[in-house]
C-alpha cells in the first residue's frame, strides 16, 4: 500500500502543496451550516459528471434535439435516471447556494478581508441561474421553447438597445435552432468554464484567509 501514491508524489508533488490546506486550523464555533458551501460544490461536481454523460447522447439541433432526449429517456441504459439526476442536482445547487449565502451573511463573513470572496460567490450564484436558464431550452419541447421565448423577450424591453440585445441572445429575430446552439454552447462551455474559474478563486481565498469562526 502507498507505493503507487509515493511514485506519483515523488514526481508530481501532490502531498506538499495540499498539506497547508488539509492541516489548516478550523476555528471554534463552526457548525453544520458551514457545510452548505461544500454541499453546493458537491452538487456542482455532480452536475459536471451527469452533464458529461448527457452530452454524449444529446444532439443540439432544431430537428433532432427533442428526439435525442426521447431516445435518451427510452433507449439508453439509465438515461432517464441521469437526466433526472442532472435536473435535481441543479435544483439542489440553487437551494444550497442561497442557504450558503444566508449563512455567510449571518456570520458577517463578507467583511474585510473577505469582500472579494463575497463578490466571487455572488457571481457564482448569477452564473448558476444563467446555467439554469440556458439549460431549460435544451430539451426543445413545448415548455422549453415558450419559456425561452418569454424569457428572452424581456431583453427587448431595454431602452434603445433592447432590439440588438435580443438579436444577440437569440441569434436572430425569433427563437430558432440558432438560439438552441447558442444556449447549448453557453450551457456546456462558457458557464462551466467561468464557474470553474470563480470557484477556484473562491477556494483560493478561503485558503488564504481561513474560515471565519463564530458570530
Amino acid at each position: 500500500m502507498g507505493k503507487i501514491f509515493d511514485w506519483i508524489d515523488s514526481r508530481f508533488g501532490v502531498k506538499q502543496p495540499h498539506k497547508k490546506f488539509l492541516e489548516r486550523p478550523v476555528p471554534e464555533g463552526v457548525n453544520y451550516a458551514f457545510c452548505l458551501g461544500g454541499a453546493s460544490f458537491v452538487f456542482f461536481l455532480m452536475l459536471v459528471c451527469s452533464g458529461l454523460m448527457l452530452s454524449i447522447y444529446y444532439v443540439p439541433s432544431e430537428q433532432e434535439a427533442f428526439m435525442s432526449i426521447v431516445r435518451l429517456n427510452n433507449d439508453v441504459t439509465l438515461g432517464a435516471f441521469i437526466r433526472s439526476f442532472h435536473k435535481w442536482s441543479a435544483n439542489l445547487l440553487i437551494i444550497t447556494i442561497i442557504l450558503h449565502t444566508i449563512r455567510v451573511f449571518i456570520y458577517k463573513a463578507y467583511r474585510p478581508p473577505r469582500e472579494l470572496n463575497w463578490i466571487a460567490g455572488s457571481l457564482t450564484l448569477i452564473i448558476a441561474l444563467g446555467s439554469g436558464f440556458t439549460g431549460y431550452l435544451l430539451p426543445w419541447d413545448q415548455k422549453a421553447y415558450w419559456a425561452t421565448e418569454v424569457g428572452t423577450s424581456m431583453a427587448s424591453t431595454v431602452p434603445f438597445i433592447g432590439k440588438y440585445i435580443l438579436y444577440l441572445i437569440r441569434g436572430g429575430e425569433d427563437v430558432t435552432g440558432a438560439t438552441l446552439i447558442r444556449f447549448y454552447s453557453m450551457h456546456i462551455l462558457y458557464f462551466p468554464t467561468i464557474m470553474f474559474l470563480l470557484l477556484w478563486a473562491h477556494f483560493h481565498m478561503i485558503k488564504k484567509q481561513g474560515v471565519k469562526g463564530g458570530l
Partner: protein
Amino acid sequence: MAEKRNKEFYPDYLVEISIVIFIAVELTVVLALVYPQLIGRQIDFSTPYRPLPEWYFLWLYQAVRYFPGRWAFIGTVLLPFIAAISLIMIPYIDRGKRGRTRAILVGVSLLLAFVVLTLIPYISP
C-alpha cells in the same frame, strides 16, 4: 487525550464532510428515482403559450407582471439589476457606523422580495 488542541481540517472535519457528501449524493439519487423528469410535448409553434418558469425565476416572472407596457423595463431589467448589484455590494454597504444595520436591511429585503414574489404565482397563478 483531553488536552485542548486546535482542530484541523484533516482529519477532524474531513470525516464529517464526507458524510455531508454522502447525504448530498444520496438525496439526489432518491429524488431522481422518485420524481423523474418527464418528457415534454412537442413544440406547438402556432399558439403562444406562457408556461411558468423554473421556481428560481418565479420572482422575476411575477415582478414583470407589475410593469406592463412602456414601463416593462423596470420589472425586466432595472429591478433585477439593482437586486444583483446590491447583493454584490453587501460588503461595501456594511461600512462604518450602522453599516451592519443597513446591510441587514438590504439583505432581508432581498430575501423577502425573493420569497414573497416566488410564492405569489403559486398561490394565485
